[in-house]
């Protein structure tokens, strides 16, 4: 593929967005980045990846950090910025990839070959998926879903220009509960191929 394409995938917790992004990357033969991007940041900063994971895709805590003008010492903000910088460098190098989360649709908004996707899902479907994946009962799964989505939303809306989950923020929003994971991947693949023709 000569043309650089970067597919950003935002997702609701439990929607299968991560799996959809992974399969899409595999089928399009693109690099795939998610939490694994922290490994690169950990290597560059000489810090344990477990330490970084504690602050990944989370909003800044109310206490424990401060901002002075453009300077912040919030670990959540610092780690987000380090990942954004890593993303920008990858984009500048001409690499094509699929990236999950990390406000990528906003960070890379000026990249010509950018396709932004948001995956949502029906509540029941999402809860079921979370129950299966984490071995939780319904209430626990619902609680986990709400907690994660709240944090993702706060994190996204703090760093990005558009609102998290708002259809106007993305090129395409899909409810994965309608077609299931595999068919959603197929649909997105068709969409991406059509979009590439327009670049």
């Amino acid at each position, binding site marked *: 593929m000569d043309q650089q394409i970067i597919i950003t995938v935002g997702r609701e917790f439990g929607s299968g967005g991560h799996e959809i992004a992974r399969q899409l990357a595999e089928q399009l033969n693109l690099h795939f980045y998610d939490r694994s991007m922290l490994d690169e940041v950990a290597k560059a*900063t000489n810090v344990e990846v477990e330490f970084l994971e504690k602050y990944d895709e989370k909003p800044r805590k109310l*206490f*424990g*950090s*401060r901002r*002075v003008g453009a*300077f*912040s*010492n919030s670990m959540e903000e*610092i780690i987000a910025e380090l990942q954004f910088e890593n993303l920008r460098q990858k984009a500048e190098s001409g690499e094509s990839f699929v990236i999950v989360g990390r406000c990528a649709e906003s960070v890379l908004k000026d990249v010509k070959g950018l396709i932004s996707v948001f995956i949502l899902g029906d509540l029941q479907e999402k809860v079921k998926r979370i129950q299966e994946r984490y071995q939780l009962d319904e209430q626990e799964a619902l609680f986990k879903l709400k907690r994660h989505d709240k944090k993702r939303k706060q994190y996204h809306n703090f760093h990005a220009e558009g609102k998290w989950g708002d259809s106007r923020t993305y090129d395409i929003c899909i409810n994965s509960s309608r077609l299931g994971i595999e068919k959603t991947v197929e649909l997105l693949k068709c969409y991406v191929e059509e979009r590439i023709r327009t670049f």
Partner: protein
Amino acid sequence: MAQILAVSIFVVMFLLVVTEKIERYIVTLVCGLLTLLLVFGAAMQNMDAIIETLNVKSIFTLGFWYTAGSAEESASGINWATIIFIMGMMIMVEGMARAGFFRWLCMKLARLVHYRPVFLFLTFMVMSALLAMFIDSITVILFLAAVTVELAKLLKFDPVPMIISEIFCANLGGSATMCGDPPNIIIGTSLGYSFSDFILNTGVLAGISLILVIGYFYLIYGKQLKRVTVSEEDIAKMPDPKEAIRSRKDFIISSTIFGGAVIMLVTHAQTGLTVAYIGAVIAVITLLTAGKDAWKLIKKVDYKTILFFIGLFVVVGGLEQTGVLEKIAGLIGSISGGNLIVMAAIIIWISAVASAFVDNIPFAATMIPIIKSLAAAQGADLATLAWTLSMGTDIGGSATPIGASANVVGTSVAAKNGYLIGWGRYCKAAAPATVLVVAVSMVIIFIRYC
């Protein structure tokens, strides 16, 4: 009713400032407006309190700009002298930064010590303290931390020990003078103390503490830095200090203005020039000599901080006018039983602990009327309480990564370059140093003044 309203507004303001949900200047301005409308207007129905708190009249008095003999004591409310001085310093410092003064100074000193990490470490600590005596610690750390990271990358050593030490010394240097740290400017202008009053009191405390702190940081970090070897090849790669100077003419002008500002500040008790006058003069000279860049310098002023101060002074004015702070002073007075040693111990430790976690500017602004009231009611020496408050607020801020602005800037600059400094690593080094300096300062205050 007025007291309840004033305290409620203050508490809400403090919480909102700490949580940073809303920009802090908006918080203090809105809370200041609420103080004027609800506390002074609706509850007290006292127009005089509003006029006294806005304090605009004071600017048009001779004493605001020039005092024959001793320094002028400011009335309560908005401390315009602090605001004008800080604005003047912001403009001058921006002029110096544009000319490349700070980067040149750092690089020049690094070259003088042949880039040997241990010497860099010691020299940068002293330079940080000396510069912070006259320039705001944010600017000092912004440049020092950036150069430290640059040198660390070239010489392949961990810059974090140096950055933590520099931050600590910048806060310590700031405590030495009237213009070094915002709490000191507010204390000095509110209570009528001069630059020399500070240097002879907090300056001595800071000087002794600096020697101890250099020893302390050398003890914990010296070994690590000694292991770093610097080859001739590394030195050859270093940037020439001259490259930092963007314009020779601007460099000479800004250095001269800085020198003039230092002389005016050091001698202001003798010349009668107030800090408001000095701030205004250095701003005007910087702008006049900047030519077409003057507008750029004006635009660079941190207006948000200026507005933050204005709102803050009004809210604290509300507490003062309603007598809330007198009650707190009465409480401290009764706990201490009028004993100056106990009062000093309470003030220095409460100030230090509070400043370690919350912005020390609102804290100092609130404490000033309290110590004034303590001195009036209990007969305690006001100057002793002022130096105690200054050391507590200035030094306490060093203990945690969020205690002072310099800490935030230093740790943020390090993080942007890939050197993360968490609470654990920061506090492990800085908290014991803070306890050491606060304890030593307290003992010296006991011996010298009580």
